[in-house]
């Protein structure tokens, strides 16, 4: 389990997270919803070690998780970043190999690659072309596939359906549910708040860096106040 306790993050003068506490129990899907600039990406980045805490602490199974980003990955916590962040000049296969950077065993890397090719067959076809030549949807698939290459225990997904065609959005959500059933713990940040809440065990609503509501996914989805204030504007 990952626990954020009273976490505060500042960028210069801006307080991006203010005393945020979040629990991500093993095997669950937890989502964070909120408007643009609410602090969702910051929450994910603080878990990944990409931004530093001003106050508070982050625990994994009761132990402090204040480590540089590459060590967080070794703990089995992998972020699939907002905007895909595919490496454009190296090939699709090389992007995937990099995803397995912490794995030394070549056979395991190969096996993992075959596994993600089963999830996303198009990536196998595109294997030898530069990541930058993939379409937006294909890049999103590659971002997820790359994140799975290191056999993570906990996946932090930052807007995985952003910019995808509706049928692909459904596919991505199905895949998230499937990965979760296979044992992955998931923290999900989504523009598609309604869809995210529907598949979440638990959800937090962030507003300008503060948690203003939390509860079971279905409860948050049904809460009229939350709906009106935070979800309605994002409904597509």
């Amino acid at each position, binding site marked *: 389990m990952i626990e954020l306790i009273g976490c505060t993050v500042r960028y210069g003068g801006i307080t991006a997270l203010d005393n945020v506490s979040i629990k991500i129990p093993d095997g669950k899907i937890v989502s964070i919803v909120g408007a643009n600039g609410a602090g969702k990406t910051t929450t994910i980045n603080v878990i990944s070690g990409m931004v530093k805490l001003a106050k508070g602490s982050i625990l994994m199974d009761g132990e402090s998780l204040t480590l540089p980003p590459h060590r967080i990955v070794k703990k089995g916590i*992998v972020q699939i*970043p907002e905007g895909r*962040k595919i490496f454009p000049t190296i090939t699709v296969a090389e992007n995937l*190999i990099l*995803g397995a*950077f912490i794995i030394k065993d070549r056979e395991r890397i190969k096996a993992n690659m075959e596994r993600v090719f089963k999830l996303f067959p198009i990536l196998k076809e595109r294997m030898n072309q530069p990541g930058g030549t993939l379409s937006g949807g294909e890049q999103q698939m590659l971002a997820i596939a790359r994140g799975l290459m290191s056999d993570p225990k906990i996946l932090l997904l930052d807007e995985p359906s952003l910019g995808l065609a509706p049928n692909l959005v459904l596919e991505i959500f199905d895949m998230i549910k499937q990965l979760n059933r296979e044992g992955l713990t998931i923290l999900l940040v989504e523009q598609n708040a309604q869809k995210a809440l529907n598949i979440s065990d638990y959800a937090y609503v962030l507003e300008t860096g503060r948690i203003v509501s939390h509860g079971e996914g279905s409860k948050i989805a049904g809460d009229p106040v939350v709906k009106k204030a935070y979800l309605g504007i994002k409904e597509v």
Partner: protein
Amino acid sequence: MHIIFQQLLNGLSLGGVYALEAVGFGLIFNVLKFSNFSHSAIVAISAYFGFFISRYLFPNFAVTLLMTAIFGGLIGVVIEKLIFRPIRLKNAPLTLFLVNSITAAMLVQQVFAATLGSDYYTYPEFMKETAWRLGAFTVSKTYVIMLTISALVLLFLSYIIRKTKIGIAIRAASSDIRTPSLMGVNVDFIVSVAFFLAGILGGITGYLLGMTYSVDPFIGSMILKGIIAAIIGGIGSLGGGVIAGLLLGATESLLISQIGASLTPIVVYSSIIILLLIRPEGISGKRFIVKA
């Protein structure tokens, strides 16, 4: 005909050294996006190091070359740790990297000028026979060996960059230096490796230049040809830099034999300016990102 062949060989072997310089320079440019003039400091320090160990420690070419290569790599790592890492961690602007790199180059030059500047240092003669006869041709052993070494080193580097996970990480970091850490890559380590590899190239460059000419405090400024080659090759393209280095070396040498040593640089430099006016992206044709 015979003379031209020999000139071409000499030119190519010098061009091989330009290629080493271009790649050493280009590697750091790719990862950190600044022009690393401190590469000349590595070349100079290594040239002296190679001289001292080959003269006083082991008069053996292969051993001292290898030692100098590794030494150059370590100097690269140390330079990065001392003057680039602190400002990188503070997200300093690229201009500051450029300024630091130039300052380091000048500093090393002046330290050598003040301490060892009154003398020329000549490497020992490693080979008794200096030439091979191939039928009608006589070729200089030194030049053949220089070209072979440059080729081997560049092949080795190309293998690392293309085939190993570290190499993939270096190429990934060239387009985005933050994101590899989300894959478990220690970016600081990757930057160190890049400087180590560039330093190895700088070490070998220093050794080969020192061996061919002699060592003086300004030997590092000879990397200017390599920087030019990197730019003609299309900065960002290491392969382009190699080709441009070889072309530059060969052209220079042939021109010297035809029009003489004083006119050659004028023709070469003006051609470079014209070439870059016509084709600013260099011969490899990659789009380049304007950075410091």
